[in-house]
Structure formats: structure tokens, C-alpha cells
């Protein structure tokens, strides 16, 4: 019966254009959202334009710029690759094998995402640095030199440990909605498990891996804290130094280079994902048979344990140590932590999550159901914001809001908008993949039963994609909770959150005081991770 299917898919995809007015409204909304989200770039145009062209070319072609560009590319590449090598096996182990305590390892493998990478990096240096706990432990054993963790290896390791969960989560989602019968088909065609994986499973889950990889790569590109602590010279650090030297035009020109890299990353991911555009991904397909690990059970468990130890246990242990050590001298830096700060964090993060899922919906819908490459453009472009360093975004919004919408300046609205610009792409991704799993004929069925398009969408599609939307919202929530630079710049006067407080006491060297808020931050964000994993269960059922 397969003969009819292809014909039908083609006809249906084309049929989506029937509702011209509805789709025009949708496109209009999506374009408006995209423009709004990209509006901070206008500031970069202005500031970069202030630089003399010859000077700009000199800056862009200088030895330092070229070196730093190369460093950045190497870091982004190595973090993304290593994240795939950690995230994909963990996803396969927790979805497709008889790994003991699968549920437990699923949670521990996802949780490092809730640890702010600057805290993670700090924990790492405390543990493995030249004066760290490890060298303290090893010193009596006569080991006086441990391998340096600074530079590229350290930055790669730390960023990988705290971003690989993006790939872990998207790969899991791909594996869970993956039709196991085709693996069985491949094995029946005399493929070994490994060959079947390589030739059948991998191509099927590759878009999922790429979707997570995109977030990892863009995060790495835009992160300043970790490379700075790990002493690896990357683009954000160069931009940051220019800001420090108060040469905003330099910083703006360099930011464009950074955004150009982001666009290249997006283009690469689009190519990988291309095959899936507009298609309806079947769901509820049969799970492939569980892979028996056999003798590999122990190594696999150790692998999960090692990742959880480094990515989760270690930073928490360091935070606990700060807490214990935080006796006399570790208190007394300014105002103590107040519950109100936590409340502020929660409310702005929840608002950012709510707004993000709402504005992500049209972009995701257009990308999932649209009939051309152009219809996924708003979705693609919205990702650019994810790579914009927080400081750049902050200053851009300071200028633009004061200039054009002064009444939002110094209000939480501007802050929430900044979060939406930065983190909405995460909601677009999960919403889009949920939409792709909804049979397009549901809406048609509802309409033939008398419901206008929006009502049909609300009554039929929305309930089905709700878990995906919630997962996207949870991702936005937990990354917003961690966000520091834009928060510092754009929060209303006197508005303190978890991270601004942690930043303040850490800057003063009062680590003990940072411990409790940091631990609470990790715990609260950890709860939102349960929403993300909960959605999986619903899908898997």
C-alpha cells in the first residue's frame, strides 16, 4: 500500500497552502516575532558603523583576531563533538539497553544542565587545578604535578560536562519516537548491531543529535564565563576585554564576527536537518528490542557514574564544601540572601518561559508545517539570539529601549524580553519536534467537523504538543535561572536574583555565602528538569 503514501504526502504538503489568509497571518506573526527578537542587532549595526572601515578591517584581520577565531572554532568543534560522544551513548544506554537503574541514570545524565557552567568551571578548578583538592590528595603520594586542566582541554571538558545534556535530551527524544522495526529490518538483512546502528539508527536520530548539537555549539560560542575561568582565549573574552577597555565599537565589530560564526553553525545544522523538514514523524512506533549489555553492563554503568560524578556530584560537593567552610570570614559581605531574591528569580524565569513558549509556537508551527525552505527561516534566525553574548544583548537593549520605548527601561519587562531573545530558540526546538509528531490530518479532521482553524488547533493540536511545549518552557526556565550578564545589566533597580547575589558574594570572595543560593538554584532548576523528562514518559506511553 506504500504506493499511495508518497503521493499523498506530496499532495498534503502542498495542500497546506490552501488556507492562504491563515497562513499569511501566521507568516506575518512569525516574521514580526523574528524581527523583534533580532532587533538588538540594530544596535550592533550602529556601533560597528562608528568604526572607521580601514580600522575595522585591520582589527578583523589582525593576528590576534585570527588566532582567537581559530581558538573559538576549535573550542566549539571540540565541545560539540565531545558532547555528542558523551550524550549519544548515554541516550542509547538509557533508552535502548538493559542498563541497571536506567531511570536513575536518565535523571543524573540530564541534570548537569542545571549547573551554571561558571559554577561548574569554578568547581573544576577547585578540584583539579594546580592548587586543587586533587593535587592536595595526591601530594602525599609523591605526585607533585598533575596535568594542567587550563586551556583548551579544560575548557572543552567543562563546557562539555554542562552542555552535553542538550544532546542527551534531543537524542533520547529521537530514539523514543524511533521506529524499532527498521532496525530489525536491517538486522534481518545481515547487519550486525553496530552496522545496523551506523546505517539505520544513526541516520534516523542524526537530526535529533544535530538539534542538541546546535544548542551546544551556540552556547559554547556565546559563553564567556567558562573559557575565562579555564583561561582559554576565545571570542567572547576578546569582546569582553574590549568592553572592559570601553571600546564599544571594537566590541561591536567583533560581535559581528561571532554572529557570522553562529550563522555558519546554523547553516550546518540546517543541512543535517534538511531531510526532515515538513515531514510528519510517526510516533508511537514500536520500540526496538532491548539491547542486552552482557559483559558491558559494568563498564556502561561506570561510564554513567563517571559522567554524573564530574558533572553533578563534583560541583555540588564543592558548593557543600563552601558551605561548611563558610564559618567566620565567609559571611558578612553586604546584605544577606533574602527569600525575595529567590522569588524574583522564579518569577522572571517563569515569565520568560511562558512568553517564550507562546512566541515560539508560530515559529515552530511554520517551520514544522510550512511548505518551503523560507518558512523555516524565522525559526532558524531566532537561534541567532542564543549565540549573542549577554553583555552585548544587555547594552543593546539599554540603548534601544531608552531610545524607543523608555517606559520599559528598568522594568522586568525588558529583562524578560532579553531572556526571550536569548532562550526562546530552546522552546522553538522542542515545540517543533512535538508538532512534527502530530498527524496533520488531525486538524483537517477537526475542521471537517466544523471547527475554524484556530479552534481546531487549540482543541486538537495543543493538547498533543502540550508536553513538548512544557519541556521547552522548562528548558527556558532553567537557563534563565542561570543567566547572569544580561540579568546584571537589565534588571530593575535593586532587583536581586539567585545569580546576581551569587555573583556579588563571589566577586567579593565570600564563597560560603554563595553556596546556599547556588545549591537552591541547582535544586529548583533540577525540578524543572523533571518536567522535561516527564514529557518523555508521556510520549513513550
Amino acid at each position: 500500500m506504500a504506493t499511495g503514501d508518497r503521493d499523498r504526502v506530496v499532495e498534503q504538503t502542498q495542500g497546506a497552502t490552501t488556507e492562504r489568509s491563515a497562513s499569511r497571518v501566521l507568516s506575518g506573526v512569525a516574521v514580526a516575532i523574528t524581527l523583534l527578537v533580532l532587533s538588538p542587532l540594530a544596535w550592533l549595526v550602529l556601533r560597528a558603523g562608528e568604526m572607521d572601515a580601514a580600522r575595522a578591517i585591520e582589527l578583523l584581520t589582525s593576528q590576534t583576531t585570527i588566532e582567537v577565531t581559530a581558538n573559538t572554532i576549535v573550542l566549539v568543534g571540540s565541545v560539540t563533538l565531545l558532547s555528542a560522544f558523551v550524550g549519544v551513548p548515554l541516550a542509547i544506554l538509557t533508552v535502548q539497553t538493559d542498563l541497571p537503574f536506567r531511570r536513575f541514570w536518565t535523571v543524573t545524565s540530564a541534570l548537569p544542565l542545571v549547573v551554571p557552567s561558571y559554577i561548574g568551571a569554578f568547581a573544576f578548578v577547585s578540584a583539579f587545578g594546580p592548587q586543587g583538592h586533587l593535587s592536595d590528595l595526591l601530594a602525599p603520594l609523591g605526585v607533585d604535578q598533575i596535568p594542567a586542566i587550563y586551556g583548551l582541554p579544560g575548557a572543552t571538558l567543562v563546557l562539555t560536562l554542562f552542555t552535553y545534556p542538550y544532546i542527551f535530551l534531543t537524542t533520547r527524544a529521537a530514539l523514543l519516537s524511533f521506529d524499532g522495526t527498521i532496525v530489525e529490518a536491517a538486522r534481518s538483512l545481515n547487519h550486525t548491531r553496530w552496522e545496523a546502528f551506523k546505517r539505520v539508527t544513526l541516520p534516523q536520530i542524526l537530526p535529533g543529535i544535530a538539534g542538541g548539537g546546535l544548542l551546544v555549539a551556540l552556547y559554547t560560542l556565546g559563553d564567556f564565563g567558562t573559557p575565562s575561568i579555564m583561561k582559554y582565549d576565545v571570542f567572547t573574552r576578546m569582546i569582553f576585554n574590549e568592553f572592559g577597555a570601553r571600546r564599544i565599537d571594537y566590541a561591536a565589530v567583533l560581535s559581528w564576527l561571532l554572529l557570522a560564526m553562529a550563522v555558519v553553525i546554523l547553516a550546518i545544522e540546517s543541512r543535517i536537518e534538511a531531510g526532515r523538514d515538513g515531514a510528519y514523524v510517526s510516533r508511537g512506533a514500536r520500540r526496538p528490542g532491548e539491547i542486552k549489555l552482557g559483559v558491558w553492563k559494568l563498564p556502561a554503568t561506570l561510564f554513567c557514574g563517571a559522567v554524573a560524578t564530574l558533572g553533578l556530584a563534583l560541583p555540588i560537593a564543592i558548593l557543600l564544601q563552601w558551605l561548611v567552610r563558610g564559618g567566620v570570614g565567609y559571611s558578612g559581605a553586604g546584605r544577606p540572601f533574602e527569600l525575595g531574591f529567590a522569588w524574583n528569580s522564579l518569577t522572571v524565569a517563569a515569565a520568560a518561559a511562558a512568553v517564550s513558549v507562546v512566541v515560539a509556537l508560530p515559529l515552530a508551527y511554520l517551520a514544522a508545517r510550512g511548505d518551503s525552505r523560507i518558512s523555516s527561516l524565522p525559526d532558524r534566525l531566532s537561534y541567532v539570539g542564543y549565540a549573542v553574548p549577554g553583555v552585548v544583548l544587555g547594552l543593546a537593549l539599554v540603548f534601544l529601549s531608552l531610545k524607543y520605548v523608555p517606559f520599559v527601561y528598568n522594568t522586568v519587562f525588558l529583562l524578560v524580553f532579553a531572556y526571550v531573545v536569548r532562550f526562546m530558540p530552546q522552546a522553538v526546538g522542542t515545540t517543533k519536534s512535538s508538532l512534527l509528531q502530530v498527524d496533520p490530518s488531525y486538524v483537517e479532521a477537526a475542521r471537517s467537523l466544523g471547527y475554524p482553524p484556530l479552534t481546531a488547533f487549540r482543541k486538537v493540536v495543543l493538547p498533543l504538543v502540550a508536553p513538548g511545549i512544557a519541556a521547552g518552557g522548562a528548558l527556558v526556565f532553567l537557563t534563565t535561572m542561570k543567566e547572569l550578564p544580561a540579568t546584571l545589566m537589565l534588571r530593575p533597580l535593586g532587583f536581586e536574583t539567585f545569580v546576581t547575589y551569587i555573583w556579588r558574594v563571589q566577586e567579593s570572595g565570600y564563597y560560603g555565602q554563595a553556596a546556599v543560593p547556588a545549591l537552591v538554584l541547582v535544586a529548583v532548576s533540577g525540578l524543572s528538569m523533571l518536567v522535561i523528562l516527564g514529557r518523555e514518559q508521556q510520549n513513550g506511553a
Partner: protein
Amino acid sequence: MEPDIDTRNTTAAFDSVESAVDDPSATVVELDGITREYGAETAVDDLSLSVNDGELLTLLGPSGCGKTTTLRMVAGLERPSGGSIQIEERAVADGSTFRKPEERNVGIVFQDYALFPHLNVAENIAFGLRDADSHEADERVTELLELVDLTDHREKMPSKLSGGQQQRVALARSLAPEPDVLLLDEPFSNLDVRLRVEMREEVRKILKRAGVTAISVTHDQEEALSISDRVAIMNDGTIEQVGDPAEVFENPESRFVASFLGQASFLSARVAGDDIETGMGTFRTGRLNGPVEAYNGATVDVLVRPDDLRAIPTAESTADGYVTQRQYNGPSFVYRVKLHSGDVVHCLHNHSESFEPGEPVEIDLTADHPLAWYPTE
């Protein structure tokens, strides 16, 4: 494949239920010269068709022929590039009007049923009962559950139902708001063979009881011929022939229809006065279904299906050709015979008559009906 020889009987058996229809000659759906273009490609080309009240009409054709597009245009899921569509004498699509699917009062049963997975059976069925209060809706759901014989499954989720049950729910859901016309898109393609035959009968029975006008789309001729009141054979965006299933099957008006229905072979035949000369002997022109004088001296192609022919074992010297392949169909064999003239024909035999590949055979024309023929292309 064999045509369903019970077609006429089945239809007759249900004619009694069709009393639900007021005026079987009234036109419910009227397509007039509809066209659908996708860029340079024309999917449906100037197609006209009318469907009568209470009638089940099937659009039958190979994939890509435009049948699904036609159905979707009736549903309002596609907008015609030209032509007009009327439902119950009301224009739903023409140059100036385009009624959206929700404004057409059509019901659709989708190929994969499109049951809403988050709603149970009763909620799915009640989904289209927008104006009914809950009590009325409940009653209507009960009624429909009885109609489709799923009274015990009221509270179940769609994922817990078998394929056949899902289809009956889909049917009930689309019938619930009493649509003017019901559209069925490849309704049986997701069912296994045994269930498919059972559901064909079941669905036809339900449709007839409900007295609903229906248009179905399929590429499965057996299905089309067995359930329809009329079939419309489509090719390349146009309708080649519309009519009673048996009539269409026996008198295909075009070579395309002929080759599409049944396991058709074409026998080249030279017309010589009152005789036609073929690779399996000479016959009288009277065996053909129409005057062939105009082609005197020329070659025509005669449609022969496996049940029209018999192979008889014979000596090499008297053979028309030899068996090249045997296809076992359970109760019967179909032999593929390569004639010395170069034509290939198929012969139907019961399973007790066995030939070996390579065996020389003589072919007898056993058909008891006039044979369709077409000018050689």
C-alpha cells in the same frame, strides 16, 4: 486479481435499506470542470462528476492520478484552480466563493483515521456535535456507537482499539454531525487483508443504514468494485469512465481502464472481413463488443482476462505458445503463456490442472461475453 463476482448481489441485498434516501436521483455533489494546478503541474484537469443522494461513489485510479486531490477539493482542504463545486445545490467553490472545510458540512474518514489520541471513543464521536447540549450529544453518541457496533468501547482510548474498531469510530465521528456528504480517503488501506474484506461489507452496511452520500478514494480495484454503487476510474487528472462496477469492468471504454482493471492482457488481432486473426487462432468479429468494420485490414488489440482463456496441453507442432510462469492463488492457478506471435496472455485454471513451465499449449477463448477491443496504438 479476480473481480468480486458478488458485487451485484451485495448491492441488491442492501437496496432495501436505501429507503432512507428521499430521492435517489437528486444530485448532492456536483463537480464542474474542476482543475487543480501546482505550479506547472496539473493534478486535476477539468474534471466533472455528479454524485447522487445516498450513493457511494468511488474514485479509483493509480497513485498520482489526482483522486485524493479531488477528494480534498470537495472537502475544502484544497482550493481548485478552476471550475466549481456544489454541495446540496450550494456553491462551495467557484471563481468567487470558497467555503472553508468547517463551513461545508462534509465528513471525512482519513486513511489513518486521525482519531484524536487524547480523547476517548465517546469524546471523539461527540467532537463534531458542536451545537448539541451534553444530553443530546450523549444520545447521539449512543446511537452512533450502536450503528457501528461499538457500544462496549465507549470509554476506551483510541490506542486501545484494533484497526477495524478505530475505523468504525472514525466513521461514527464523521457521521455524527450528519454531513451532507461523507468522504473516505483510502479507508481500508491500513487494515490487514482479512479485516479489509470484512470491513468493506461493514462500512457499506453502515453507510447505507445512515443513508449518507459518500465519495471514497482508493487504488484498490477489488475494494472499489465491491463496495461502490458507481466507480469513477481516474487517470492523469481526468475521469476515464464512470459507471456501475460490473459495466465498467466488462466494458472498459478506454485502453487505460481495461488495463487497470483485472489482470488484463491484450491480444493483437488483424481484422479480415468477418474474421479476426490472432496468435491463438481466428475468431468471428461477432465475439467483439462493437462494430469493427472500419478497421478492416488493420490491427486491433483485444482485451482478454485470465477467465476468458483456457490453456490446453498439446504437441509442439500445434501449440499457440508455451507456458512461461505459474502463479498459484490458492483455489486457482494463473498461467502466463507466451504466444508464438509474441503476445503474452494469462489463463485461469483450477488447481487440479497443472502445467509445467515450458510446456507447449494451445489457447481456447472461453469467454461467454463480448470482448472489448481497442485500436492499436
